[in-house]
């Protein structure tokens, strides 16, 4: 009698446990579906870019579309480098982005330190306003000045104007980073007779290396991606990659394979950097909501 009741209770309990497990499973499937919905616009977009870039022209113009390149071809990439001199533009982009990032680190890291230490919030506000200003509003006067100086058509104006993007990013990230460092080590160094420059150089700077990495990556990416400064200031020979890829669209007869291949060449370094350094990038972007341009 009591054994049967216990058995029934156990069965009921098992049923509840099974229902609970089922509900949890359904919840998990639903959640997985939600995540899939969230990432699929990005995923499908980049897969389609790859598909366009590796297909031959006949497949690219086919309707209904061909999704998987068979066989994949590199001819679009060869086309881009042979017909459009992408090698020169790649070198330009590398010089401009590395130059603007290097200079921004040189100026911006000490500045971030100084602002963090003296708690100069007003200086930080100036950086914020620079973040708010449309890139075009710097360009009108700078364009004139570079014309007067006879610099339009060289890479110098590009490196200088890219500082508009890179310096605020570096300063902003570094302020946050130096504020988070404990003071004791530098104070100990100062007590031992170091100058504040030595305390910065030998104590704070080595500790700030992770912050510098974040600042460097973000500043490089947003300089690399910048289009508007190049489109106004670059001459034929000094185009950066984003300007060059835009010109592929306007001046060539439109063929999709080379266009997609060019787009991929431009953005591949940035995508690779994002995949490899996602932790640093997420940390930097979350901290300040920094974005260039």
């Amino acid at each position, binding site marked *: 009698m009591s054994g049967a009741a216990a058995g029934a209770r156990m069965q009921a309990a098992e049923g509840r446990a099974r229902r609970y497990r089922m509900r949890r499973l359904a919840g998990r499937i639903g959640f997985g579906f939600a995540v899939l919905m969230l990432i699929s616009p990005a995923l499908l977009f980049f897969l*389609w870019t790859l598909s366009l870039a590796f297909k031959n022209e006949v497949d690219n113009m086919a309707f209904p579309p061909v999704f998987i390149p068979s066989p994949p071809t590199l001819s679009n990439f060869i086309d881009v480098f042979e017909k459009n001199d992408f090698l020169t533009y790649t070198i330009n982009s590398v010089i401009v982005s590395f130059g603007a990032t290097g200079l921004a680190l*040189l100026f911006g890291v000490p500045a971030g330190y100084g602002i963090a230490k003296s708690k100069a919030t007003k200086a930080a506000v100036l950086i914020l306003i620079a973040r708010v200003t449309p890139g075009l509003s710097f360009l009108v006067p700078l364009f004139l000045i570079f014309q007067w100086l006879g610099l339009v058509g060289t890479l110098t104006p590009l490196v200088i104007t890219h500082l508009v993007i890179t310096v605020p990013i570096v300063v902003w990230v570094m302020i946050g980073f130096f504020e988070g460092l404990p003071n004791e080590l530098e104070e100990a160094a100062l007590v031992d007779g170091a100058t504040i420059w030595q305390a910065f150089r030998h104590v704070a700077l080595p500790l700030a290396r992770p912050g510098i990495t974040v600042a460097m990556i973000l500043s490089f990416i947003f300089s690399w991606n910048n289009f508007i400064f190049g489109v106004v200031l670059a001459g034929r020979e000094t185009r950066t990659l984003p300007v060059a890829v835009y010109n592929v669209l306007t001046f060539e007869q439109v063929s999709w394979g080379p266009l997609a291949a060019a787009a991929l060449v431009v953005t591949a370094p940035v995508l690779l950097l994002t995949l490899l350094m996602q932790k640093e990038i997420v940390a930097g972007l979350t901290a300040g909501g920094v974005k260039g*341009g």
Partner: protein
Amino acid sequence: MSASVAASASARAEGGKPRGANYARHYWAFAAPAAAVVGAVIVFPWLFTLFMSVHDWKVTGTVSYVGLANYTHLFTDDRFQWAVLRTLYFTLFATLAPVVLGVIAAVCFAQKFPLRGLARTIFILPMMATPVAVSLVWTMMFHPQLGVLNYILTSIGLPPATWVYQANTVIPTLVMVETWQWTPLVMLIVLGGLASLPTDPYEAAVLDGANPWQTFRHITLPLLWPFILVAAVLRLIDALKAFDTIYVITGGGPGTSSETINILLYQTAFAYYDLGYGSAMVVVFFVLILLISMILLRVRTSR
């Protein structure tokens, strides 16, 4: 960490004045080179723009003082006023959609699940990718006959869309691209907010038997509000400034149906080379951006 904070606090108490104060003046030296750069490439252009905006300034060399004529012209310029309205229309939806989706995405990515790191990286790729490059691919996808988007629409039984090829669909389409691109930034900021939330209210909610939706609605959302607002302000500013995608995908067309302030500004200054009028436009645009962001920040402090 808290021990070290306590230690430094006691060190300050013993020393009377905080040690940093003796040096505060000297720390300015660290910022001086950057200040010089900011002055040269950011502050000086602002002032020079103001100067140019009261001149009739053509690239061909003729410069003459015209007072506020450029500004009064703006207020009678139909093309500019339509650009302002269009910019506001675009901005409203290019802010709302990413903020709503970004909060949903942040809540999802705050959960632990397999391959979360990879999923999150894929999710943020659109905001890291070169805008010009992705705009070109979007342009190919919008192609009315051969584009993959219309293929997908027709194969699930929907009529093909006109995307950027018709005046009444061009801005919604650009909003879609902008949303695709910038929802990740909202997600990251809100995710940062979620990570910093206290756990106590949640424990209390579990004890009180609140369901997940009630917990989200009455605990998570109010606590997240400051982060959502920061994300919304940043998104708003960036939407007002949107240039690359619009310029590459439509160039302001068809006709002028997607010509925002920034596009018109570019045309005025660098296609018609009317730098004085363009500068006046920059000033008004800049004031508009500051006003809108200040209103939003006021909303934040009044809550």
